[in-house]
Each structure stands twice: as structure tokens, then as C-alpha cells.
């Protein structure tokens, strides 16, 4: 069953007020950040708070993710040792550049599994934010069966390639597409970079529409005020839902009659289009529309 992952809310891992209400802000999934939101002298504080919160707080069935520190930081092992036993749903590895980066994380999880003699079903997301990461996005997506998504990180990426971020985003177009292709080839979630101007709702809408059009499944958000806008754009609207129902009914009827394709409103509907319609209905069901 396809998980609803339209909005990924970033929550600073050292902020108890936000952590305890994270499941009730309307985001489809949340990531507790131990990396860029946390100053170096509070890394221990955040790590321990997130570890404890994951064990005791009710997150309302929202998927929980933890952004650990990257392999270059020297903090990754400490993060994993603390966090894995608390079993977040997903671990997000920033600055991922190769399948080895992912494999090292998997090995840490497997070590814990051996230690406690139980299966720990933690999935992995990779944050693609460097040129090498973009180039290797397919191998990263395929690195392990635990891989469940890639998120694009445009701020670090543009800094890395030596250009600046623009609202129109030409400098990101290729990388976004590359990441989307990698995700779709592997059948995992493609999540776009967050929109960083908290007050510019119009700009947020534009960028999110664009992300949806490119093929992203969802978008990271750094402010709870952005959640509803992004959810709405990534949700099928009434028109799409009635289209999907109509198309699926016709197609399934056609299948019964032995037809591989049918005509709906003078347009051809075959298996791929029916699959898209099915996906829309599933999402609508999840949203309980």
C-alpha cells in the first residue's frame, strides 16, 4: 500500500515543544534533525532528546525519520548507536554520495539486529545535496532493499556547485530530474527540497506546483505554515478524482470484456493510465476524501 508522503516536516531535534506535537501538524511524515539545525555544542542534547522522544511520544501514525550527521562529521556512529534502538521508521543520511555511504548505515542496523536478536525494520532515505550525489543517485537508490526514498537538498547543492539559488530554479532542473528518474526507476519516494522563504506563500505554491509537475511525490517543508499548501498541491483534486474513478471503472469493465485498452472521452486508456488512476484513488482514500 502506497504511503502518503506529500509533506516532510523538518523539526529541530533539540526542540521539545515541536517534537511533542510533530505528529499533529498535518504533515505526512516528520524528520527530527540532528544535523544542520543543531549547533555543535548541542549535538549530544538533541541526540538524547530524539532518542527518548521516539520511545515515548505518540506521533499519530505519522512516519518518523531522523536526520543523522553525515559520515564526514565524525558523529554518525554515535547518532546511529543512540537512535537505532529507538526504532524510528526511517533514517535520513545527509550528503549521501555513494552506495557505500548507505551500506555503512545498513551494517550498523544489522549489528543492532544481531545484538538484540530481532528484526529492526528501519528504512533509509538519502539526502542528495552534492554533484557526486546527483550523479550517483541511481546507485544510491539501489544500494539496499531498505532504501525507501531520496530527498533533494538544494541549499547545499547550489553552494557546492558554486552558484546561487533562484526562485525559477534553472540551476536545479537537471539534478531534480536525475533524482526523480532514479527514484521512479527503483520505485521509491522522490521528495523535493524545502522552500526557504517562510512568508512567501505565492513563491511556495509556484515551486511546489513545479515540483509536482516534474514528478516529485512530495516536498520537504521547514515551516508548519507551509504544510497545508504543499499537501493540497500534491493531493489529487475533485476533478482528478472523478477522472480517475471514471477511467478506472471503464478500464476494469474493458478488462472483463477482454480489452487491453478502452476509450474514455475520446482518449485512450490503457494499463499505464489505469495505474495512474488507481494511484490517485489510493491517495484519495488515504486522505479520506
Amino acid at each position, binding site marked *: 500500500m502506497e504511503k502518503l508522503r506529500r509533506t516532510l516536516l523538518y523539526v529541530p531535534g533539540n526542540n521539545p515543544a515541536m517534537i511533542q506535537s510533530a505528529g499533529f*501538524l*498535518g504533515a505526512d511524515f516528520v524528520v527530527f534533525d540532528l544535523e544542520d539545525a543543531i549547533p555543535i555544542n548541542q549535538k549530544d542534547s538533541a541526540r538524547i532528546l530524539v532518542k527518548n522522544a521516539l520511545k515515548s511520544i505518540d506521533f499519530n501514525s505519522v512516519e518518523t525519520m531522523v536526520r543523522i550527521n553525515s559520515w564526514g562529521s565524525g558523529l554518525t556512529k554515535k547518532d546511529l548507536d543512540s537512535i537505532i534502538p529507538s526504532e524510528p521508521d526511517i533514517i535520513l543520511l545527509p550528503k549521501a554520495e555513494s552506495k557505500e555511504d548507505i551500506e555503512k548505515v545498513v551494517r550498523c542496523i544489522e549489528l543492532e539486529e544481531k545484538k538484540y536478536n530481532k528484526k529492526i525494520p528501519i528504512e533509509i532515505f538519502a539526502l542528495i545535496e552534492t554533484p557526486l550525489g546527483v550523479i550517483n543517485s541511481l546507485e544510491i537508490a539501489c544500494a539496499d532493499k531498505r532504501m525507501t526514498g531520496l530527498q533533494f537538498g538544494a541549499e547545499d547543492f547550489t553552494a557546492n556547485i558554486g552558484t546561487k539559488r533562484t526562485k525559477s530554479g534553472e540551476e536545479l532542473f537537471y539534478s531534480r530530474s536525475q533524482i526523480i528518474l532514479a527514484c521512479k526507476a527503483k520505485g521509491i519516494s522522490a521528495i523535493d527540497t524545502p522552500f526557504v522563504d517562510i512568508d512567501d506563500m505565492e513563491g511556495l505554491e509556484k515551486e511546489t506546483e513545479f515540483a509536482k509537475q516534474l514528478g516529485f511525490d512530495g516536498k520537504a517543508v521547514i515551516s508548519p505554515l507551509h504544510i497545508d499548501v504543499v499537501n493540497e498541491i500534491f493531493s489529487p483534486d475533485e476533478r482528478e478524482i472523478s477522472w480517475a474513478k471514471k477511467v478506472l471503472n471503464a478500464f476494469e469493465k474493458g478488462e472483463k470484456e477482454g480489452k487491453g485498452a478502452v476509450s474514455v472521452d475520446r482518449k485512450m486508456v490503457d494499463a499505464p493510465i489505469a495505474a495512474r488512476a488507481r494511484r490517485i484513488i489510493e491517495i484519495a482514500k488515504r486522505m479520506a476524501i
Partner: protein
Amino acid sequence: MTKVVKSIKKVLKLINIKDGMTISFHHHLRNGDYVMNLVLEEIAEIGVKNLTLAATGIYPIHQPLIKKMENKIITKIDTDFISGPVGEAIVNGKLEQPAIFRSRGGRARAIETKELKIDIAFIAAPSADSAGNINGVDGPSACGPLGYAIPDAHYADKVIAITDNLVDYPLFPVRIEENLVDYVVVVDKIGDAQKIMSGTTIITRDPIGLRIAKYALQVIEQSGLFKTGFSFQTGAGGISLAVADYLHKKMKEKNIIGSFALGGITKFLVDMLNEGLLKTLLNVQSFDLDAVKSVKENPQHQAISVSRYANPKAKSCAVDNLDISILGASEVDTNFNVNIVTDSNGIIIGGSGGHNDSAEGSKLTIIVTPLIRGRFPVVVDKLTTVTTPGRCIDVVVTERGIAVNPNNKEIEERLINSNLPIVPISKLKGVAYQLTGKPEPIKFYDRIVGKVEERNGKIVDYIRMLKY
């Protein structure tokens, strides 16, 4: 002729203020009011004692009142709302007699039935003429329709206008007519109108608050009442205001024109009126300067008296014509009783204000509140203080679930069939306690320091002195 008297001191002598009298003030200047403090200072100098202070609202700026309580100049308070240090002083036993907490409509009823007899009404008057005609919309301290001062003006033995803007006779427009007024005193400033918009009358930016507001909007949409001609009132809290904002957008989208919005009026409601989304505003109090300006300039924005607003014993009143009210709560119990007078530490933080009135009057009453506040559960076994009875409350909306009062079968049926997270109120309570744990009970002395009344005058709870 002139009723102008040189000073407050002089007028107090003229009216022969005595021990044991009841004096009244309105709170239209909210936390920017100077008048109550000015008058009480002069009264303190004269040396009268054992006065009852019948103030419609007491704010942090009225902190000097505490000394008057300690010196037994004021030994009783009769009010609709207290926020700030005076509330804390009362629960610490500084007031000799129990304070009486009434609703807006309840106070109007008590005055008009002579249950609350006012000897002297001091009316802060943003504009006045020498004959005592008063309005609230002109002058440097313009603060709105003076709705809460109307019963006092009609029923007090002596009525004193205190103004910082004396104009030539005759003043126009006039809100309180000269035939009701005894004297006029001119002072430098009656208050700071910038401070009217104080405290919570700002739309919330807290994401939890906004989520609750979103849910409340959906409840309204599913209620069957959301159609052209509907009417509503929102409380002054940040979440209620966010609901008004969402309502605004939805009404525009669905082309729904409301008949009226009632109560404390803010810029949000003024904008809705100006955009043609509401036919009229019935204003008993202006919460900001835009609302002050609009009630003066726009004939569709009507000033009403508190008696017309909510007096249950009047021939009719506006709250009884309301469709929907959206109100806050400090605590709710599993019988849907609401506390709006004290916080979870037993300290006075408010008062019924219009809560009791609109909750009883409106067809649908929605409480909007986070499930926990700080570490305290909002939905609890037993309220610290009952203010509004559960029979008036239909829906409680929190970010973690929505509870419907089983005594409203129609709403229950509509909402259960919607996609909203409807849960029994006992479940909300369970979730709250699971999050926070059960706090130690508050310790009280037996001594009663406050009596809380419903709008009809029936005592619904007592406030006791805190023991540390």
C-alpha cells in the same frame, strides 16, 4: 450650563462619596485604561473605605488596585473579567469579601433588576461636552462603542464623565446622552488607546493553534448552519481569531454572506464587512483601532449596548439569535463543563466575559483549545472552576481529536459521518493524561475568595484561597 468640575477630587466631594458605596468603571480602554487608577488614587486620599468596585474588566494596568484592597478601601469586587496581578492577589486572599464573577449579560441583568446597585458610575469618555454628552469614537483616546457602560449610565445614582477631550456643546455623535450625566471632569489623558489591542487579540501563529482552527472551520462547514444568512461570534483568543480568518476565506470561496458577526470586534471582522461578506456588525466592544474607526464611520457597523448584547432578562438579546460561537477554555471536563475563570494553578486569569452568554445563546457552540497547555491537560476529570455549564457546549476541538456533546444528536450525526477525527471526550481526557500524567491537586484554604455566576445569576462555582 456646565457640569464641568475642576478635578476628580472636587467631584468626589460634590457627590459626597461615602463608605460602603458601589462605584463602577467600564473597560473599553482595556489594558490602556488610566481612569480607574486615577479615581481610586483620589478616593484613597479622601479616606473612604469598604467600597465595592463594580468594574466590567480589570487588567494588568490596574495593579495599583491591590494596595487599595490591602488598605480596605476596596473590600468587594463585582466584575466580568480579571487578568493580571489583581487576579493573583484575590486568590492569595487580599480582598476582604469574595469577588463576584458575572457574564456580560449577567451584569446587565443584575444592574437592570437592581440586584447590583451602583452609587457612582465613572465613565471614561473619549469625547464629552460641558453638558455631559459622551461618545467613544472621537478624541485621542477613542476606544469604541462604550457598550458596557450603558446600563451604568442609566441606572447609577450618579454618573461622572471623565474625559481628555472636551468639545463645544453639543457633541455629535452621542452615545450616552446628557440627561443621564451629572458631572464632567477633564483630565490630561484617560488612557492609551494603542493598548486596546492587547494580549491575546492577535491571530495565532502557533502551528497547533492553526491546525485546531482548521478543524473548527471544517466542523462549521459540516454543521448545516454554514450558509448565507448565518451569524457568528468569536472569542478574543488567538485561535478563535484564526477561525474567523479561515471563515473569511471560505465565505469568499463559497460566496456565503453572513447576516451578522457579534461581540468584540476586530479588524478581521471589519474587513469582512467592507468586503460585503457580512451584512452588519453588532459591536459591544472594539478590540483594535480599526474597529473603533469603522463603528464611527460605517452605518452598517452598529454599536450596541451590553443589555441588547446578552441580558437574559431583557425582552430579547442578540446572543440568543446567534448561529455559531467559537470560544476558548482553560479547562473542559467530560461533561463538557468549561473553566474560563482560573488556570490550572487555581489563579484567576479571566472570567466569563461573554462566554456564558454566547455559549447559551448560540445554536452551535464550539470550544477551540489545545489538548494540553504547557504540561497541563486541558480536558480533565474535574474542573478547577466551573464557569459555563456543559449543556451549552456542543463541540470541543483539539489538535488530537474532536469531541461532540451527546446531548446534541444532530451535530453528532453530521460530524460522525464526516472525515473529522471524532472521538468520545473521555478518550481525549485519556490521551491528555497519558501525555502529561496527573498533576498534584491544588491546595486550597476553605475561605471563599470568589463566586462565579451563570448569566441568570445562579452561582455555578466558588473560588477558594490558594494554599502554598
